[in-house]
């Protein structure tokens, strides 16, 4: 019993990662001793100020970057290159602009299931995934013919179609307007209920983190950024954003994150005189 629990506990083990980047003026330590163990089916949010290395953590799990020290174990196997079992939803959708939604998903399906699926099965699987994100009506449209939210949906469908063991999302809804974002969050919860994926999501949005996650990992400011606190979110599923607004537990969690970000990790930056208020706003997480 203990062993199963243990292996479940260590489904994805991000073990004591350091990350140093070489710069002309010596090496820059972006991450120091980042250590998280993630269970299968868990939804983790990474939150922190800009430049704290959230994306670096995600890129190391994806295998795009290599940690200087420590490492990532997925099902007890070391991660050292990118692969479809750790699908990534990129911040700016990164769909191939010359392919339709269908073809973008097809590229992934053809590669991942080239030996295990027949042509007809692949077609069904592609259409199933596009339906899952409610994009079946625009399957044969190219990225420049659909809206930003729709592009992000196709990006999610492409990632889901790889049937990944871990889904990595780098601010997937960051570039969307508030209404579309809320809509996408609901969609994601719906998909998550059905598939129960293991997800790591980077976000700037405190509400988004509380609404979607099982645990919120809050990172300290860089350099030498590391995990400051981990917050368990024990709100029952399915979650409803309207009902939660009145929920005291939700509000407690929300203010805990806000406190971490604006009291404990208050970004003390020497703001150059040329920096405008708007630019400064961009650097701080979205509270609204």
């Amino acid at each position: 019993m203990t062993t199963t629990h243990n292996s479940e506990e260590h489904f994805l083990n991000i073990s004591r990662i350091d990350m140093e980047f070489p710069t002309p003026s010596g090496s820059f330590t972006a991450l120091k001793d980042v250590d998280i163990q993630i269970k299968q089916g868990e939804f983790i949010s990474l939150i922190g100020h800009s430049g704290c290395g959230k994306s670096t953590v995600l890129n190391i799990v994806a295998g795009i970057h290599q940690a200087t020290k420590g490492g990532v174990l997925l099902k007890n196997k070391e991660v050292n290159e990118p692969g479809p079992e750790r699908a990534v939803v990129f911040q700016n959708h990164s769909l191939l602009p010359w392919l339709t939604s269908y073809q973008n998903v097809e590229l992934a399906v053809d590669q991942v299931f080239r030996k295990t699926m027949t042509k007809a099965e692949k077609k069904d699987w592609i259409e199933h995934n596009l339906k899952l994100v409610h994009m079946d009506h625009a399957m044969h449209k190219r990225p420049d013919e659909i809206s930003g939210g729709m592009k992000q949906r196709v990006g999610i469908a492409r990632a889901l179609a790889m049937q990944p063991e871990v889904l990595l999302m780098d601010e997937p809804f960051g570039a969307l307007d508030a209404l579309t974002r809320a809509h996408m969050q609901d969609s994601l919860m719906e998909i998550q209920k059905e598939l129960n994926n293991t997800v790591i999501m980077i976000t700037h949005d405190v509400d988004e983190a509380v609404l979607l996650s099982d645990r919120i990992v809050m990172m300290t400011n860089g350099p030498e950024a590391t995990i400051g606190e981990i917050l368990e979110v024990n709100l029952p599923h399915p979650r409803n954003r309207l009902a939660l607004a009145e929920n005291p537990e939700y509000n407690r969690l929300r203010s805990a994150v806000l406190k971490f970000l604006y009291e404990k990790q208050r970004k003390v930056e020497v703001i150059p005189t040329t920096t405008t208020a708007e630019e400064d706003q961009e650097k701080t997480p979205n509270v609204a």
Partner: protein
Amino acid sequence: MSLTTATINRLTVNEKIMKTLKGVLNTVSNALLLPAVGIAIFLALWSITAQSIHTSLGEFPGPNAVVKQFSTLYDEHIAERKKAEAFYERQEKRNAKKLEKNPDAVVKIRAYTGKETFVDQIFTSLVTVTSGFLVAAIIAIPLGIWMGLSAKLNSAMNPIVQIFKPVSPLAWLPLVTMVVSALYVSDDPLVSKSFLTSLITVSLCSLWPMVINTSIGVSSIDSDLLNVSKVLRLPTLTHIKKIVLPASVPMIFTGMRLSFGVAWMVLIAAEMLAQNPGLGKFVWDEFQNGSSNSLARIMAAVIVIGFIGFLLDRIMLMLQRKVSWDKSSATV
């Protein structure tokens, strides 16, 4: 009250019609009228200036003389074709007679060896430039892709590309001529030496814009798209076919258009010196001929050369629009 609304409505409708009319007029004047005015002014200046230039071959030809030479060139072409037809007809008759006398006789059809007409020369030039361009493309595009993928190869190749890019075809030509003469020895040559020399010279000069543009196109692919390929673990060939090639098609085509322009310019010079029977040779022969019509005939060739160059560019642009996903890159 309703009357005034109606009047206002009518007014706005009238305004709308006026606006559309103005728009149409604007388009017409931009697309037709202004170019026509430009050409008219050019022709007027040309004929005035031409009259005051006296050369050893007579007055510099004005537009009228050139137009006259166009029709002469066409007549010569028709006459030459008739001659050729008659030549073959005569042979056939003679052979038929021979066979009548002796059914076992060996008969031959000899090829007509009359001189190429202006139209033949245009055709030869087009074949030569296209062949030279295709040879260059077959080398340049794979090389450019490879250079774009590998920063090391790019650094290694860059000085060579930069040094050879500005070299004039006239500098290459003697070398190419000698090399072709030395290496292309055959009793029954598939193509003439002059054709091969011109082709290689065209290739050597039109290679570089394609190499440079392709390698830039490939090396500047969005890193997110490359990450997609990495996450999918696409094998190298699939990666090139599915990601690299389509992503860099707009830049490759820009390079191809530039190269085709260079190829056409280089061709005329190459044909002149290599004596490949194309437009370049036509110009050279007329210059050597030195008749009172020569300048007008050369001027006619100049106009044809310009016009064909323009058409070739348009064809490349059409191709680019057809093939490229990024329509905004395919602009004039």
